[in-house]
């Protein structure tokens, strides 16, 4: 499993959200309960500013592994912000069977 920087050890219980690809993050969101996502959000959201500051110690195109994992975790935080802050459910309301796949995403 991904390892986070030492000063983000408090987020280590949520390291399974360190996912490189949107497809993985979105799938984990849909298969998680609201309680799980709320716990992740409550732990990670207050650390977002600190996380960005840590990641910015290296250029984005040359991140060490731990900073890269932290960035992936921030991507997941962005993804779960919709269920947690707005929808109160994992799925987009009124989206039914509609699906949308990422076919190109940035390398970092």
């Amino acid at each position, binding site marked *: 499993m991904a390892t986070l920087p030492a000063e983000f050890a408090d987020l280590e219980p949520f390291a399974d959200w360190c996912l490189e690809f949107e497809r993985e993050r979105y799938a984990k969101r849909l298969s998680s309960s609201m309680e799980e996502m709320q716990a992740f959000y409550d732990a990670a959201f207050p650390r977002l500013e600190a*996380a960005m500051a840590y990641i910015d110690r290296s250029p984005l195109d040359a991140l060490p592994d731990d900073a890269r994992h932290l960035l992936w975790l921030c991507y997941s935080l*962005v993804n779960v*912000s*919709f269920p947690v802050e707005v929808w109160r459910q994992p799925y987009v309301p*009124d*989206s039914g069977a509609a*699906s*949308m*796949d990422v*076919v190109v995403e940035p390398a970092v």
Partner: protein
Amino acid sequence: MPHFPKPAEGSWTEHYPYLGTGPVTYEDSISPEHYEVERKAIFGRTWLNVGRVEQLPRVGSYFTKEIDAANTSVVVVRSADQQVRAFYNMCRHRGNKLVWQDYPGEETNGTCRQFTCKYHGWRYNLEGDLTFIQQEPEFFDVDKADYGLVPVRVETWEGFIFVNLDAHDTTPLRDYLGELARGLEGYPFDQMTQVFKYRAVVGANWKLFIDAFTEFYHAPVLHARQAVSAESQKLSQFGYEALSYQIAGPHGMVSSWGGMSPPKDLDMVKPIERVLHSGLFGPWDRPIEIELPPSLNPARSPVWGVDSFLFFPNFMLLVWAPNWYLTYNYWPTSYNTHIFEGTLYFVPPKTARERLSQEIAAVTFKEYALQDGNTLEATQTMLESRAVTQFPLGDQEILLRLLHHTAREYVADYQRQQSGTSERVGATS
């Protein structure tokens, strides 16, 4: 009283009288027979955007594009002379699809030195010339010079690659795209190379989905729950009015105010948006300064947020005030299904905040598009019931009138030409 001035005629729609103001029919979106004509009359005869030059960074870079509506596949490649070229994706020997991986129906991309057919190993260089025939002496009087790949007309405008499957149409791309496009020239599309691309199969006619993206009248209602409640109430109270609409030939645009970019009241956006300085309208902090070309913000409004251009038939370009852009491509696969592609383009980020501000814009785009997609499947189903066949359109829905009017005109023109041709054939036989 409108919040933003309208033309002297009293409405945008009446400013373009040929569009009419009466109820419309969507028979053009629910008839399999009509779609069969559209395939030839529209998708076989117009300039179709298939990608951008950044997808072809080097000599030998290529991608394929499936154009089901025109019953074909093309391969687009950067040839040895640095030209962007396009060919029908078909081997001249036995007609096999030339470039594909694993699944013949799926698009692919990569870099190669030449194209080699999987079937019998015939080879073509990047200029499309046939260079190698397996066991050539076994063939009878076959001159390789006569069996190159069949070229497809391809031109680029501002880095956007278009193909035209009509070998007889000689209208250059730039002329076809017209004055709205000319007024966009010089915008730094080439600096926005950080790409997020989404793809969805949508159970609705291609025009009906374009309809959903050329009016914002629906936004305060359909997407009400996406905004936090104070913003949602504010939006539904005011409804939606555009700053301006412009129509030039078959193409049109809507210019819109910017909502939350940046928001006047931070309580009105999601908590994470306050931290990341970004949301549906994109990052609030502008990565570069741009002098707007004349087609953008035509009303020169201080509250301008986004301009949405529809280039007929199936290409939309949205340029946002905070200096990023979006494209939509709609590829019909039947009268009531199509493939939707939405692509976001940003200036490459330098900091984690910039990167995450792009991430939330991309995620938010997907959340909205999922709602739009499902809603349009519901529309398609009910329209097909034909329980109601006449529908009113408001002034904020003028671009729907334009799209359906233009599509029907192309079909009618094609049918007139076909009947003229068959009459001539009949006269000479």
